[in-house]
Every structure is written in C-alpha cells, then in structure tokens.
C-alpha cells in the first residue's frame, strides 16, 4: 500500500534521510522506533509534503501513485493522514468549521457529494465520543488552549472524521497520560484496523504498542531502517536500548 524506496531527504541542506526503504502492506500496522535525531519526524513530514523538506532521491508510492508528485492537500484526498507530533493552533477557526471544510474538500476532490451541516455534525459527534472528547471542544478554535493530551485526542477525532486509508502518526503517544493513551490506542484500532488500511506509528516508546499491536517493528537510525522484526523487537529495544540492538 505504501512503498518507500531509497528515500533521501534534507532540510536546509542538512541530509536527514539517507536511503530509507520501507513497505507497509494493506491491513498492516507498522511501528517505527528510533533514537532522537534518527529522522522519524522528517520521514513523517516528507510523507505529508511539508514545505522545506526536500527529497533529493528515491521514491514513495502510495496506492499505486507517485506520492511525492502530489501537493499536501492532494495527498490527503488520496487518503493519507499525518498525525502531528505538535498539532497546530488555528485561532479564529473552529474545529467543526475546519473539519467540515477539510472533509468536504477531500470529498469534492474524489468526486463525492459534500456532507450537509447536519450530516457532518452527526459524524463529528460519533467520532468525538469514540475518543472521549467533549463535543464542546469541537466547537472551540482548533487546538487553541487545548492541553497536550486534548490536542492528541483531537487529532484522532480528525482522523476518525476524515477516515483515511493510511495514517502516519508521529509520536501520537507523547504528552498522554495512561488513561488517554488507552483511549487513543482504542481509537486508532477502531478507526484504522481494517484490511484495506495501513498505519505507520512513529514512537520512542513501547507503551503505545501495548494498545496498538504492531505487525512489524522497524528501527530507524541515522536516516535508514537498520532492523526489522515483529512486536518482540519493540520489547527488546525497551529493555536493551537502541545502541545495543542496532550495534
């Protein structure tokens, strides 16, 4: 479903990704773990098409299309979702307004009918309940004044509403307490566990993987995948550390 081959990318002339190759099949949850500075967030932003992240070599194919050739909003319409490590505040725009515009933009791009206000609110209520996020939060400005945990849950509500085919989740577990971690984990499973969907979970720690069981665990170090294994690899990393495992 997502095929990354020999990807090289840099930011402001600094090489971060140095020949990253990775494939995620439909129905698969893959975890990427790695030390600070390995290039995890860079990979997420390159997949999301953030300006300033320059791909110098390699290819990314998503659902048979050249992902790197698409604008960020076109990637979203194709079904790519990026969960931000630091969700962005948008003063003056409510979550409801933002997400309805986002969903209907995607639907129009795919040639589908936009949802009416009523239909949208019904969907938003359902997904907010799934993530235990108060509907009043949805009426507030996007991420403005939200706690770290609320921002992450709001991201997952966005994912639920947009219903993407593939989610790249960049440290979605950071800033979450134990209960919120479980809620977010359950949300990811409910929204993304399907034979025709895929997930790339980027995380430092094993703990999110207790709730969202990965099919594969990849270790990213110095811009490349250096080791791939099953869920047991995450446990080994947790007990022995990156250096020991990747040495």
């Amino acid at each position, binding site marked *: 479903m997502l095929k990354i081959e020999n990807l090289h990318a840099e930011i402001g002339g600094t090489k971060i990704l140095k020949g990253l190759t990775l494939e995620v099949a439909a129905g698969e949850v893959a975890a990427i773990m790695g030390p600070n500075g390995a290039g995890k967030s860079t990979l997420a932003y390159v997949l999301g098409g953030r300006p300033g992240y320059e791909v110098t070599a390699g290819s990314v194919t998503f659902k048979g299309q050249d992902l790197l050739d698409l604008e960020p909003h076109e990637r*979203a319409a194709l079904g790519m979702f990026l969960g931000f490590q630091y969700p*962005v505040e948008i003063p003056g725009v409510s979550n409801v307004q933002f997400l309805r515009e986002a969903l209907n933009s995607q639907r129009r791009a795919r040639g589908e009918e936009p949802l009416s206000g009523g239909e949208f609110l019904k969907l938003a209520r359902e997904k907010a309940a799934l993530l235990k996020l108060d509907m009043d939060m949805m009426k507030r400005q996007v991420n403005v004044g939200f706690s770290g945990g609320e921002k992450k849950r709001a991201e997952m509500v966005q994912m639920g509403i947009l219903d993407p085919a593939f989610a790249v989740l960049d440290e979605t577990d950071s800033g979450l307490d134990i209960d919120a971690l479980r809620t977010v984990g359950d949300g990811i499973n409910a929204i993304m566990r399907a034979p025709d969907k895929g997930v790339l979970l980027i995380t430092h720690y094993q703990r999110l993987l207790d709730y969202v069981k990965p099919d594969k665990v990849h270790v990213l170090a110095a811009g490349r995948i250096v080791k791939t294994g099953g869920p047991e690899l995450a446990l080994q990393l947790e007990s022995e550390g990156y250096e020991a495992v990747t040495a």
Partner: protein
Amino acid sequence: MSAAPITQPVTRPTMRDEAWRYADFDAITTFAPEAFDEWREIDVAAGETFRECFILDSAAPTLRRIRINVAKGARAEVFAVNAAGDYARVELAVSLAEGAHFEFGGVTIGGGDATREFVTRLDHGAPDATSNQVVRSVHWGQATGNFLGRIDVGRDGQRTDAAQDFKAVLLERGASANARPELEIYADDVKCAHGAAIGQMDEMARYYMASRGIAPDIARELLIRAFIADAFAALDDEDARDGLLEIALKTLGER
C-alpha cells in the same frame, strides 16, 4: 463695484501633519479644497445607540469624514471595510460625554499600490467614557494599510477606559502597514491600552490545513476570515457581520 468676498483659505494638509503622514499626496491633490473642511455630523442623544456599517470600494480617491458627538451614556458603533481601488481615507472624530461608549471595527484590505487608511481622534473629555477600536489590515502587491488613532483624555476624563488594537498581515513583500497610536492624557485615573503587530501569514497553519485536504486558496481564505473577523467581533448583527466579511474576502478572490 463690490468688494471681493472674504474667504478663509482652506489649507491643504501636508506631510508634516501627524494625521496625514502616511497619506497618498498625489491622490489628495485631486480633492476639492472644501473637502478638507467638510464633516458629516452625527449626534447620538443621551442613552441612545447609533450604529453604522459601511464599505469603501470606489476606484477613485475617497475621503470620508464623520464627526460623532456621543451624549451621556450613549453608544456609537462604526464598522467599516476599506477595500477601495485607490487612496481611501476614513476619518472619525468622536467626542464622548460622561459614561458614553465608542466602538470601532475597521478592515483595510487590498492590493495594487493604493493606500487605505483609518484615522480616528477620540475626545475623552468626560469621566467614565469607554472606547474600543480594532483594526485589521491585509495587503499584497504594493499596497499600504494605516491606522492612526489619537486619543485625548482631558483633565475631567477620569476613569477613561480606551483600547486600540491593530494587526496587519502582509501577504507579499512590497506591501506595508503603519500603526500610530497617539495618546494625550491629562487625567490620572485612566486605562489606555494599545497594541500593534505586523506579520505574515501563518504558514504552519496553512500547511496543517493542507494536510487535512484543504486547498491552499481556501486555507488562506479561512485564515484571513478568522483574522479580520476580530474587527467585527463586537458587531452583534450576524447578517451585517457576514456581509462585511464577504465584501472584504471578495477582494482577496480578485487577487
């Protein structure tokens, strides 16, 4: 033979006049001399509320001057979009009696090389009067947006509470914005707050919207709508508010 009529020569403003320092002097020469002496006068009676919403969208230089006398406990509200195609200047001279309130929300928006400006002068000469002014500017091309706000608090203007807030977003290099708050305070129990910020579009917010599927032009419009909506937040007539926003955003579409 009759004597020549004695007329007071009207002096045209010069760049040395504080209130005209950012004006477009080429455009000003097209105004008739009398224009600098003309005011539309509005009296708001004690306890009454006056509200006016207007839009400047002329392609020719425009000068609109309004003098408002707000009587005891009365309220005056002015909301305006300055989206003219050439130099356009709105001047508001407001005199506040005891306990009166003045509310102003203004948006300057547009491209080209036009200067669009709001110039206000508030006379807080009486006690317990309040005022709130919010101006938002969005410009591109070689355009300029200005807000010059003068507040005079006289000796009797105790417990004056006056606020001015100006923010500008410049979409392109070459556009500019000027904010000039001017406070003259002769009373000692006074609150006068003013703030000004000039910046660019929040590109991270735009990228965040794009990552959720919102095309760049729609994302920009949503962000600018949110930005300029501050100027009309105090307008409690939803239709009027939406009308002003739509007119302002229409300009953006012509970009």
